[in-house]
């Protein structure tokens, strides 16, 4: 079923169910009205025998999405007053069957708490998701999900990842909480709402091979670039070793990619797979400067290889294709010429076959270092020992007369020398 068709069907079901609900009160008009119930439950201090509040704010209820309903439409086991002490929990499925079905197959299916109110908030004050008072209003979604998916013990108890702190400090969380951007991705933008599936489920929008499309729902251009690149093509072929958006950007703690923090952390991410390239990169000036921080401009992997449309050097449209190097290097190094771009950003000075010049330069420098230092270390240590020995041997005779051994030729000569 296409998305549009599903939306239409959902709309139809919703209208039909609201109509059905609205039809109920007219049939039961002789029984209890909301006003009747509020006679007691309107008292804000009203509690049940266990001490839980069973008060209802009539005005707030009336303004909620269910405001036009009567109490007994949901509390169907109450027929008349007085009603039994223990009443059955409200079953939302009666009207919201579609959502209930979706929920049944989701990771939240076996929730012990009421499956609907955990997310939609207090039962009597549920507002449409476009209403800022709603618990599922875009700006409130992270907080709502964060009730469980945060480091508040609940997550730990159920073995859930604590994602809320990561999300809220991310570029999405920042856009949402600080800027109030309604279009910024919140939890349900990626995970869906009622039919949330594990990322291990191939149907899930967060399943590895579905991630590019999920992110692409907003980042369409980047998704298109990515799918042209070598990683996107590998994923499309079903090679799940290739990285998707979340492998480089993380799933929740997504940073602004031009930010120093992201530029500092991301090169090793490429290095997780491209180990040899990462190791040779680390020997270069680019890496040495880059790892010190405060100078985020130095070239990282994607500055030369592109971030999303990564192509092999043999591809004429790759920025690291021989024909494009002057432009690619020239983005940072103004004045880059054909000779300049022969620089090897992944040179290996230990590989004699690949870069013989470099190999011998390194060998010469290492030998120079080792020989000079070895010779002078030996020279200096012997000198120190000998000088100290000489000093100790001759000092007692100088300090006090007759305390040491009789003066020999050495001291006489020294005295003679000094008096010359």
């Amino acid at each position, binding site marked *: 079923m296409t998305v549009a068709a599903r939306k239409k069907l959902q709309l139809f079901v919703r209208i039909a169910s609201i109509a059905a609900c609205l039809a109920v009160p007219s049939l039961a008009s002789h029984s209890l009205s909301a006003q009747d119930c509020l006679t007691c439950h309107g008292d804000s201090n009203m509690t049940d025998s266990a001490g839980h509040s069973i008060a209802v704010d009539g005005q707030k209820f009336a303004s909620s999405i269910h405001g036009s309903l009567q109490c007994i439409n949901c509390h169907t086991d109450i027929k008349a007053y007085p009603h039994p002490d223990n009443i059955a929990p409200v079953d939302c499925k009666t009207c919201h069957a579609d959502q209930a079905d979706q929920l049944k197959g989701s990771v939240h299916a076996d929730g012990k708490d009421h499956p609907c109110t955990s997310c939609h908030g207090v039962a009597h004050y549920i507002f449409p998701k476009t209403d800022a008072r709603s618990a599922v209003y875009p700006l409130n979604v992270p907080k709502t999900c964060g009730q469980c998916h945060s480091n508040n013990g609940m997550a730990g108890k159920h073995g859930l990842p604590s994602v809320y702190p990561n999300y809220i400090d991310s570029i999405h969380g920042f856009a949402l909480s600080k800027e109030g951007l309604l279009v910024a991705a919140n939890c349900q933008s990626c995970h869906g709402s009622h039919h949330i599936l594990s990322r291990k489920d191939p149907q899930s929008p967060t399943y590895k091979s579905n991630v590019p499309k999920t992110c692409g729902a907003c980042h369409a251009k980047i998704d298109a670039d990515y799918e042209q690149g070598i990683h996107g093509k590998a994923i499309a072929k079903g090679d799940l070793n290739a990285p998707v958006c979340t492998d480089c950007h993380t799933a929740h703690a997504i940073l602004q990619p031009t930010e120093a923090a992201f530029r500092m952390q991301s090169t090793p991410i490429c290095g997780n797979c491209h180990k040899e390239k990462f190791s040779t990169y680390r020997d270069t000036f680019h890496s040495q400067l880059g790892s010190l921080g405060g100078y985020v401009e130095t070239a990282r992997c994607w500055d030369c290889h592109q971030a999303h449309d990564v192509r092999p050097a043999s591809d004429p449209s790759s920025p690291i294709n021989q024909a494009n190097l002057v432009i690619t290097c020239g983005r940072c190094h103004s004045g880059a010429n054909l000779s300049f771009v022969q620089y090897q950003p992944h040179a290996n000075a230990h590989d004699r076959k690949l870069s013989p010049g470099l190999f011998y330069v390194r060998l010469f420098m290492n030998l120079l270092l080792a020989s000079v230092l070895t010779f002078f270390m030996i*020279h200096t240590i*012997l000198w120190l*020992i000998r000088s100290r020995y000489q000093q100790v041997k001759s000092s007692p005779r100088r300090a006090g007369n007759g305390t040491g051994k009789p003066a020999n030729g050495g001291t006489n000569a020294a005295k003679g*020398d000094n008096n010359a």
Partner: protein
Amino acid sequence: MPELAPANRIPEPATTGRYFVRFTRAQRWMHAVLFSTFLGLAATGLPMRFSESFWARKFASGVGGFGAILFFHKFCAIALTVAFLIHVKDIFQRGLVNREKGIFWGPTSMVANWKDAKDLFGHMRWFLGLGPKPKFERYAYWEKFDYWAVFWGMIVIGFSGYAMWFAPFFAHFLPGWALNAVLIIHSEEGLLAILFIFAIHFVNTHLRPDSFPMDMVIFTGVESEEEFQHKRPLEYQRMAAEGKLSPRLGQAPPIWLLNFSRVVGYAAIFIGLLLLVLTLSAYFS
């Protein structure tokens, strides 16, 4: 062993009280510029060389990140280059234009000669107790080595450094792989210079028992007659024989200069040894 000179820095009870000039004011300034820029270059170069060590990032973030480090590195490099060029110009001025004797050859020259080779072997024999201690001239062989090591290092490190700084320009004359090579040359030669100065020069010149804890002559320019005689008997004898001792008589160094020199010198040695420890810790980790 009548040739044996006493290796004792405790002053003789009967000092002559005379001081002789060893270094001119310009030479002392040259050394001051040299060691202060060298310390600056080492302190900013090492974090780059060992950019993944625990202290490099801390130091870098402490001083304002890599940008600040590179700025200071280049600043010191230019100062040192200028000092080097002034020195080279001075040598040619004195040797070729003014026709001053003893610049390129002879006992006062920095150029190595046959005596230096003999002194090296003689000194080593003395270390092992196999012969007398050689008598040194104005510049001993290890002092000449220090000089040429710095001279060679200056050319090699300087050239490779400028090649990295102005890489697109140097690429007009250098092959592509040379741009890779200059980093290896620069960092290895720099490392050699740092290890040599902080481990070898410090001990040979300042920390050995004859000079411990510091040879002040490079700061004050003068040394006592006893020290002169003891450290370089051959030069002393030659000066005496040529009757040139009295023109080289100098003033005893003032207390303020001694104290100032000690503060500067100890600070330099402390920074150097600290950098040496950090270098070794990063190198062997």
